[in-house]
Protein backbone atom coordinates (compact mmCIF):
# COMPACT_ATOMS: atom_id res chain seq x y z
CA UNK A 1 0.00 0.00 0.00
CA UNK A 2 1.31 3.43 -0.88
CA UNK A 3 -0.52 6.12 1.12
CA UNK A 4 -0.17 9.73 0.14
CA UNK A 5 2.35 11.92 1.95
CA UNK A 6 -0.33 13.81 3.86
CA UNK A 7 -2.54 11.14 5.34
CA UNK A 8 -6.08 11.62 6.59
CA UNK A 9 -7.09 9.58 9.65
CA UNK A 10 -9.13 7.17 7.55
CA UNK A 11 -6.10 6.44 5.37
CA UNK A 12 -3.88 6.13 8.42
CA UNK A 13 -6.23 3.48 9.87
CA UNK A 14 -6.04 1.59 6.58
CA UNK A 15 -2.27 1.87 6.62
CA UNK A 16 -2.13 0.63 10.22
CA UNK A 17 -4.19 -2.40 9.25
CA UNK A 18 -2.00 -3.08 6.22
CA UNK A 19 1.16 -2.74 8.30
CA UNK A 20 -0.20 -5.28 10.74
CA UNK A 21 -0.43 -7.72 7.82
CA UNK A 22 3.00 -6.78 6.46
CA UNK A 23 1.30 -5.36 3.37
CA UNK A 24 2.47 -1.74 3.76
CA UNK A 25 5.30 -0.82 1.39
CA UNK A 26 6.25 2.57 2.84
CA UNK A 27 5.40 3.41 6.44
CA UNK A 28 6.97 6.87 6.53
CA UNK A 29 3.72 8.77 5.78
CA UNK A 30 1.99 6.71 8.45
CA UNK A 31 4.68 7.43 11.01
CA UNK A 32 4.48 11.13 10.21
CA UNK A 33 0.72 11.05 10.72
CA UNK A 34 0.99 9.14 13.99
CA UNK A 35 3.37 11.71 15.38
CA UNK A 36 0.68 14.38 15.25
CA UNK A 37 -2.51 12.30 15.75
CA UNK A 38 -3.29 10.91 19.20
CA UNK A 39 -6.58 9.15 18.19
CA UNK A 40 -4.69 7.17 15.54
CA UNK A 41 -1.99 6.27 18.09
CA UNK A 42 -4.77 4.93 20.31
CA UNK A 43 -6.14 3.02 17.35
CA UNK A 44 -2.68 1.55 16.83
CA UNK A 45 -2.51 0.41 20.46
CA UNK A 46 -5.98 -1.10 20.19
CA UNK A 47 -5.02 -3.10 17.10
CA UNK A 48 -1.89 -4.35 18.86
CA UNK A 49 -3.93 -5.59 21.82
CA UNK A 50 -6.46 -7.28 19.55
CA UNK A 51 -3.62 -8.99 17.71
CA UNK A 52 -2.52 -10.64 20.94
CA UNK A 53 -6.03 -11.99 21.48
CA UNK A 54 -6.22 -13.90 18.21
CA UNK A 55 -3.77 -16.58 19.32
CA UNK A 56 -6.22 -18.04 21.85
CA UNK A 57 -8.91 -18.39 19.19
CA UNK A 58 -6.70 -20.67 17.10
CA UNK A 59 -6.46 -23.26 19.86
CA UNK A 60 -9.46 -25.42 19.09
CA UNK A 61 -9.70 -28.98 17.82
CA UNK A 62 -12.70 -30.91 16.52
CA UNK A 63 -14.16 -33.66 18.71
CA UNK A 64 -12.45 -37.02 18.32
CA UNK A 65 -15.50 -38.75 16.88
CA UNK A 66 -16.32 -36.15 14.26
CA UNK A 67 -14.53 -38.03 11.48
CA UNK A 68 -16.46 -41.21 12.30
CA UNK A 69 -19.72 -39.31 11.92
CA UNK A 70 -18.62 -37.87 8.58
CA UNK A 71 -17.44 -41.25 7.33
CA UNK A 72 -20.68 -42.93 8.34
CA UNK A 73 -22.70 -40.39 6.41
CA UNK A 74 -20.34 -40.45 3.44
CA UNK A 75 -20.63 -44.24 3.13
CA UNK A 76 -24.40 -43.89 3.13
CA UNK A 77 -24.13 -41.66 0.09
CA UNK A 78 -22.58 -42.09 -3.29
CA UNK A 79 -20.58 -39.29 -4.82
CA UNK A 80 -22.42 -37.74 -7.70
CA UNK A 81 -21.03 -39.26 -10.87
CA UNK A 82 -22.51 -36.55 -13.06
CA UNK A 83 -22.72 -32.85 -12.19
CA UNK A 84 -26.17 -31.66 -11.23
CA UNK A 85 -26.49 -29.25 -14.17
CA UNK A 86 -25.64 -32.02 -16.63
CA UNK A 87 -28.12 -34.38 -15.01
CA UNK A 88 -30.88 -31.76 -15.30
CA UNK A 89 -29.99 -31.18 -18.95
CA UNK A 90 -30.05 -34.92 -19.66
CA UNK A 91 -33.42 -35.29 -17.94
CA UNK A 92 -34.84 -32.44 -20.00
CA UNK A 93 -33.46 -33.92 -23.20
CA UNK A 94 -34.98 -37.31 -22.36
CA UNK A 95 -38.36 -35.70 -21.64
CA UNK A 96 -38.20 -33.82 -24.93
CA UNK A 97 -37.36 -37.02 -26.81
CA UNK A 98 -40.32 -38.82 -25.26
CA UNK A 99 -42.56 -35.91 -26.18
CA UNK A 100 -41.38 -35.83 -29.77
CA UNK A 101 -41.73 -39.60 -30.06
CA UNK A 102 -45.29 -39.43 -28.78
CA UNK A 103 -46.07 -36.62 -31.17
CA UNK A 104 -44.61 -38.61 -34.05
CA UNK A 105 -46.67 -41.70 -33.21
CA UNK A 106 -49.82 -39.59 -32.97
CA UNK A 107 -49.20 -38.02 -36.35
CA UNK A 108 -48.47 -41.41 -37.90
CA UNK A 109 -51.69 -42.82 -36.47
CA UNK A 110 -53.76 -39.91 -37.79
CA UNK A 111 -52.17 -40.30 -41.20
CA UNK A 112 -53.29 -43.94 -41.23
CA UNK A 113 -56.78 -42.97 -40.13
CA UNK A 114 -57.16 -40.23 -42.67
CA UNK A 115 -55.79 -42.53 -45.38
CA UNK A 116 -58.87 -44.64 -44.95
CA UNK A 117 -58.53 -47.08 -42.04
CA UNK A 118 -62.23 -47.56 -41.36
CA UNK A 119 -62.18 -48.72 -37.77
CA UNK A 120 -60.09 -45.87 -36.43
CA UNK A 121 -61.92 -43.42 -38.68
CA UNK A 122 -65.21 -44.56 -37.15
CA UNK A 123 -64.08 -43.53 -33.65
CA UNK A 124 -62.64 -40.33 -34.93
CA UNK A 125 -65.93 -39.42 -36.62
CA UNK A 126 -67.68 -39.78 -33.27
CA UNK A 127 -65.11 -38.09 -31.07
CA UNK A 128 -63.61 -35.34 -33.21
CA UNK A 129 -65.31 -35.12 -36.58
CA UNK A 130 -63.87 -31.67 -37.21
CA UNK A 131 -60.35 -33.03 -37.55
CA UNK A 132 -60.91 -35.32 -40.50
CA UNK A 133 -60.20 -32.69 -43.11
CA UNK A 134 -57.17 -31.10 -41.45
CA UNK A 135 -53.41 -31.62 -41.44
CA UNK A 136 -52.51 -34.49 -39.01
CA UNK A 137 -49.38 -32.87 -37.57
CA UNK A 138 -51.20 -29.63 -36.76
CA UNK A 139 -54.06 -31.57 -35.22
CA UNK A 140 -51.92 -33.55 -32.83
CA UNK A 141 -49.91 -30.50 -31.89
CA UNK A 142 -53.14 -28.66 -31.07
CA UNK A 143 -54.84 -31.63 -29.36
CA UNK A 144 -52.32 -34.07 -27.89
CA UNK A 145 -55.15 -35.99 -26.23
CA UNK A 146 -55.95 -37.41 -29.65
CA UNK A 147 -53.07 -39.81 -29.09
CA UNK A 148 -55.29 -41.54 -26.53
CA UNK A 149 -57.47 -42.75 -29.36
CA UNK A 150 -54.95 -45.50 -29.93
CA UNK A 151 -56.17 -47.15 -26.74
CA UNK A 152 -59.75 -47.42 -28.01
CA UNK A 153 -61.23 -50.67 -29.43
CA UNK A 154 -60.46 -51.24 -33.06
CA UNK A 155 -63.86 -52.62 -33.97
CA UNK A 156 -66.95 -50.54 -34.67
CA UNK A 157 -70.26 -51.21 -32.89
CA UNK A 158 -71.69 -52.46 -36.20
CA UNK A 159 -68.92 -55.02 -36.54
CA UNK A 160 -69.46 -56.19 -32.96
CA UNK A 161 -73.14 -56.76 -33.58
CA UNK A 162 -72.26 -58.88 -36.61
Amino acid sequence: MKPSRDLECVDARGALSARLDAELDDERPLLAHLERCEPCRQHERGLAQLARGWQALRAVAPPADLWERIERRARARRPRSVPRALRVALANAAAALVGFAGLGLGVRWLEVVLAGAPRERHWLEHLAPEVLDRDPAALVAARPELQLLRTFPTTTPDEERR
Partner: protein
Amino acid sequence: MECPVAPAGPNRAPPAPVPASGMDPDHALVLALRRGEHDGLAEAYRRHGARVYRLALRMLGRTPDAEDATQEVFLELFERARSFAGRSRFSTWLHRVTVNHCLHRLEKERLRAVDPLSGDERDPARGPAEEHLARGEARESLELLLLRLAPAQRAILLLREIEGLSYQEIAETLEIPAGTVMSRLSRAREDLLRLARLEEARNATAHGAVLSPDALPQT
Protein backbone atom coordinates in the same frame (compact mmCIF):
# COMPACT_ATOMS: atom_id res chain seq x y z
CA MET B 1 -11.45 -45.79 9.70
CA GLU B 2 -8.94 -44.02 11.87
CA CYS B 3 -8.29 -40.51 10.75
CA PRO B 4 -6.17 -38.47 13.12
CA VAL B 5 -6.50 -34.76 12.63
CA ALA B 6 -3.41 -32.61 12.45
CA PRO B 7 -2.92 -31.08 15.92
CA ALA B 8 -4.27 -27.61 16.55
CA GLY B 9 -2.60 -26.37 19.67
CA PRO B 10 -2.11 -22.82 20.87
CA ASN B 11 1.39 -22.71 19.41
CA ARG B 12 0.42 -24.01 16.06
CA ALA B 13 1.44 -21.48 13.47
CA PRO B 14 -1.03 -20.53 10.79
CA PRO B 15 -0.36 -22.16 7.44
CA ALA B 16 2.25 -20.40 5.39
CA PRO B 17 0.88 -18.53 2.39
CA VAL B 18 1.26 -20.66 -0.70
CA PRO B 19 2.82 -19.25 -3.83
CA ALA B 20 0.48 -18.33 -6.65
CA SER B 21 2.17 -20.80 -8.99
CA GLY B 22 3.33 -24.40 -8.66
CA MET B 23 1.69 -27.72 -8.04
CA ASP B 24 -1.12 -27.82 -5.53
CA PRO B 25 0.09 -29.95 -2.60
CA ASP B 26 -3.40 -31.47 -2.53
CA HIS B 27 -3.35 -32.48 -6.20
CA ALA B 28 -3.29 -36.24 -5.55
CA LEU B 29 -5.96 -35.79 -2.93
CA VAL B 30 -8.23 -34.04 -5.41
CA LEU B 31 -7.79 -36.87 -7.92
CA ALA B 32 -8.76 -39.43 -5.27
CA LEU B 33 -11.82 -37.40 -4.33
CA ARG B 34 -12.84 -37.11 -7.96
CA ARG B 35 -12.69 -40.90 -8.21
CA GLY B 36 -15.06 -41.04 -5.25
CA GLU B 37 -12.53 -42.78 -3.00
CA HIS B 38 -13.34 -42.72 0.69
CA ASP B 39 -9.63 -42.79 1.48
CA GLY B 40 -9.38 -39.46 -0.32
CA LEU B 41 -12.04 -38.02 1.93
CA ALA B 42 -10.24 -39.38 5.00
CA GLU B 43 -7.00 -37.76 3.86
CA ALA B 44 -8.80 -34.47 3.17
CA TYR B 45 -10.18 -34.54 6.70
CA ARG B 46 -6.80 -35.43 8.18
CA ARG B 47 -5.17 -32.49 6.44
CA HIS B 48 -7.92 -29.88 6.64
CA GLY B 49 -10.50 -31.07 9.18
CA ALA B 50 -9.17 -28.98 12.08
CA ARG B 51 -9.07 -25.86 9.90
CA VAL B 52 -12.62 -26.31 8.65
CA TYR B 53 -13.92 -26.99 12.16
CA ARG B 54 -12.09 -24.01 13.64
CA LEU B 55 -13.35 -21.67 10.94
CA ALA B 56 -16.92 -22.96 11.33
CA LEU B 57 -16.76 -22.63 15.12
CA ARG B 58 -15.52 -19.04 14.97
CA MET B 59 -18.06 -18.17 12.30
CA LEU B 60 -21.06 -19.81 13.95
CA GLY B 61 -20.14 -19.55 17.65
CA ARG B 62 -21.77 -22.77 18.80
CA THR B 63 -20.01 -26.14 19.03
CA PRO B 64 -22.93 -28.26 17.75
CA ASP B 65 -23.36 -25.92 14.79
CA ALA B 66 -19.65 -26.12 14.00
CA GLU B 67 -19.70 -29.92 14.16
CA ASP B 68 -22.70 -30.08 11.88
CA ALA B 69 -21.22 -27.54 9.47
CA THR B 70 -17.95 -29.48 9.30
CA GLN B 71 -19.82 -32.65 8.43
CA GLU B 72 -21.82 -30.87 5.75
CA VAL B 73 -18.72 -29.27 4.24
CA PHE B 74 -16.87 -32.59 3.92
CA LEU B 75 -19.91 -34.37 2.55
CA GLU B 76 -20.34 -31.56 0.03
CA LEU B 77 -16.67 -31.85 -0.77
CA PHE B 78 -17.06 -35.57 -1.45
CA GLU B 79 -20.07 -35.05 -3.68
CA ARG B 80 -18.81 -32.00 -5.54
CA ALA B 81 -15.13 -32.84 -6.00
CA ARG B 82 -15.71 -33.23 -9.74
CA SER B 83 -16.84 -29.63 -9.95
CA PHE B 84 -13.54 -28.39 -8.53
CA ALA B 85 -12.00 -26.73 -11.58
CA GLY B 86 -8.50 -26.38 -10.15
CA ARG B 87 -8.28 -22.65 -10.84
CA SER B 88 -7.30 -22.11 -7.20
CA ARG B 89 -5.63 -24.24 -4.57
CA PHE B 90 -7.79 -26.99 -3.12
CA SER B 91 -7.38 -25.44 0.34
CA THR B 92 -8.64 -22.10 -1.02
CA TRP B 93 -11.65 -23.84 -2.51
CA LEU B 94 -12.27 -25.61 0.80
CA HIS B 95 -12.11 -22.31 2.67
CA ARG B 96 -14.60 -20.85 0.20
CA VAL B 97 -16.99 -23.76 0.62
CA THR B 98 -16.74 -23.47 4.40
CA VAL B 99 -17.24 -19.71 4.52
CA ASN B 100 -20.15 -19.84 2.09
CA HIS B 101 -21.76 -22.69 4.02
CA CYS B 102 -21.48 -20.71 7.27
CA LEU B 103 -22.76 -17.48 5.72
CA HIS B 104 -25.70 -19.35 4.21
CA ARG B 105 -26.41 -20.99 7.54
CA LEU B 106 -26.27 -17.69 9.43
CA GLU B 107 -28.57 -16.05 6.91
CA LYS B 108 -31.09 -18.88 7.23
CA GLU B 109 -30.89 -18.59 11.00
CA ARG B 110 -31.45 -14.84 10.81
CA LEU B 111 -34.47 -15.22 8.56
CA ARG B 112 -35.90 -17.95 10.76
CA ALA B 113 -35.45 -15.78 13.85
CA VAL B 114 -37.41 -12.90 12.37
CA ASP B 115 -40.12 -15.09 10.86
CA PRO B 116 -43.04 -15.33 13.34
CA LEU B 117 -44.26 -18.51 11.62
CA SER B 118 -40.95 -20.36 11.85
CA GLY B 119 -41.55 -21.69 15.36
CA ASP B 120 -38.10 -20.54 16.37
CA GLU B 121 -38.47 -19.06 19.81
CA ARG B 122 -34.99 -17.60 19.99
CA ASP B 123 -34.74 -13.88 20.47
CA PRO B 124 -33.72 -12.43 17.11
CA ALA B 125 -31.50 -9.93 18.89
CA ARG B 126 -29.70 -12.71 20.74
CA GLY B 127 -26.87 -14.27 18.80
CA PRO B 128 -24.34 -16.82 20.05
CA ALA B 129 -22.41 -14.11 21.88
CA GLU B 130 -25.46 -13.08 23.90
CA GLU B 131 -26.30 -16.72 24.60
CA HIS B 132 -22.85 -17.35 26.03
CA LEU B 133 -23.13 -14.29 28.22
CA ALA B 134 -26.63 -15.22 29.35
CA ARG B 135 -25.35 -18.65 30.43
CA GLY B 136 -22.57 -16.97 32.37
CA GLU B 137 -19.86 -18.62 30.31
CA ALA B 138 -16.48 -17.03 30.81
CA ARG B 139 -15.49 -16.87 27.18
CA GLU B 140 -12.74 -14.79 25.72
CA SER B 141 -14.06 -11.31 25.16
CA LEU B 142 -12.54 -11.16 21.71
CA GLU B 143 -14.50 -14.26 20.73
CA LEU B 144 -17.71 -12.63 21.86
CA LEU B 145 -16.94 -9.38 20.10
CA LEU B 146 -16.16 -11.28 16.94
CA LEU B 147 -19.58 -12.92 17.01
CA ARG B 148 -21.19 -9.48 17.10
CA LEU B 149 -19.52 -8.40 13.91
CA ALA B 150 -21.41 -8.71 10.64
CA PRO B 151 -20.81 -12.26 9.31
CA ALA B 152 -18.98 -11.05 6.20
CA GLN B 153 -16.60 -8.98 8.33
CA ARG B 154 -16.12 -11.91 10.66
CA ALA B 155 -15.22 -14.13 7.73
CA ILE B 156 -12.54 -11.87 6.32
CA LEU B 157 -10.98 -11.29 9.75
CA LEU B 158 -10.92 -15.01 10.51
CA LEU B 159 -9.33 -15.85 7.18
CA ARG B 160 -6.55 -13.38 7.93
CA GLU B 161 -6.08 -13.61 11.68
CA ILE B 162 -6.91 -17.25 12.39
CA GLU B 163 -6.16 -18.99 9.12
CA GLY B 164 -3.25 -16.76 8.17
CA LEU B 165 -4.24 -16.36 4.52
CA SER B 166 -2.50 -13.77 2.38
CA TYR B 167 -4.48 -10.94 0.83
CA GLN B 168 -4.34 -12.72 -2.52
CA GLU B 169 -5.67 -15.96 -1.01
CA ILE B 170 -8.44 -14.09 0.79
CA ALA B 171 -9.38 -12.42 -2.49
CA GLU B 172 -9.58 -15.83 -4.19
CA THR B 173 -11.51 -17.34 -1.31
CA LEU B 174 -14.11 -14.59 -1.13
CA GLU B 175 -14.01 -13.94 -4.88
CA ILE B 176 -13.39 -10.23 -4.47
CA PRO B 177 -10.67 -7.98 -5.92
CA ALA B 178 -7.35 -8.11 -4.05
CA GLY B 179 -7.49 -4.34 -3.50
CA THR B 180 -10.82 -4.71 -1.73
CA VAL B 181 -9.36 -7.09 0.85
CA MET B 182 -7.21 -4.36 2.38
CA SER B 183 -10.06 -1.89 2.83
CA ARG B 184 -12.48 -4.52 4.12
CA LEU B 185 -9.97 -5.80 6.65
CA SER B 186 -9.27 -2.29 7.87
CA ARG B 187 -12.98 -1.59 8.21
CA ALA B 188 -13.59 -4.87 10.04
CA ARG B 189 -10.81 -4.11 12.51
CA GLU B 190 -12.18 -0.62 13.11
CA ASP B 191 -15.64 -2.03 13.77
CA LEU B 192 -14.20 -4.63 16.11
CA LEU B 193 -12.41 -1.92 18.07
CA ARG B 194 -15.60 0.12 18.15
CA LEU B 195 -17.49 -2.85 19.58
CA ALA B 196 -14.73 -3.35 22.14
CA ARG B 197 -15.03 0.27 23.20
CA LEU B 198 -18.80 -0.04 23.59
CA GLU B 199 -18.45 -3.28 25.49
CA GLU B 200 -15.87 -1.83 27.85
CA ALA B 201 -18.03 1.18 28.47
CA ARG B 202 -21.06 -1.02 29.16
CA ASN B 203 -19.50 -3.58 31.40
CA ALA B 204 -15.83 -3.25 32.22
CA THR B 205 -15.68 -5.97 34.84
CA ALA B 206 -18.35 -8.56 33.99
CA HIS B 207 -16.39 -10.66 31.52
CA GLY B 208 -12.88 -9.34 31.32
CA ALA B 209 -11.35 -6.57 29.31
CA VAL B 210 -9.90 -7.00 25.86
CA LEU B 211 -8.42 -3.54 25.74
CA SER B 212 -7.01 -1.28 28.34
CA PRO B 213 -8.81 2.08 28.63
CA ASP B 214 -5.73 3.72 27.19
CA ALA B 215 -6.06 1.72 23.99
CA LEU B 216 -9.68 2.56 23.36
CA PRO B 217 -10.13 4.66 20.26
CA GLN B 218 -11.66 8.05 20.83
CA THR B 219 -13.21 8.51 17.42
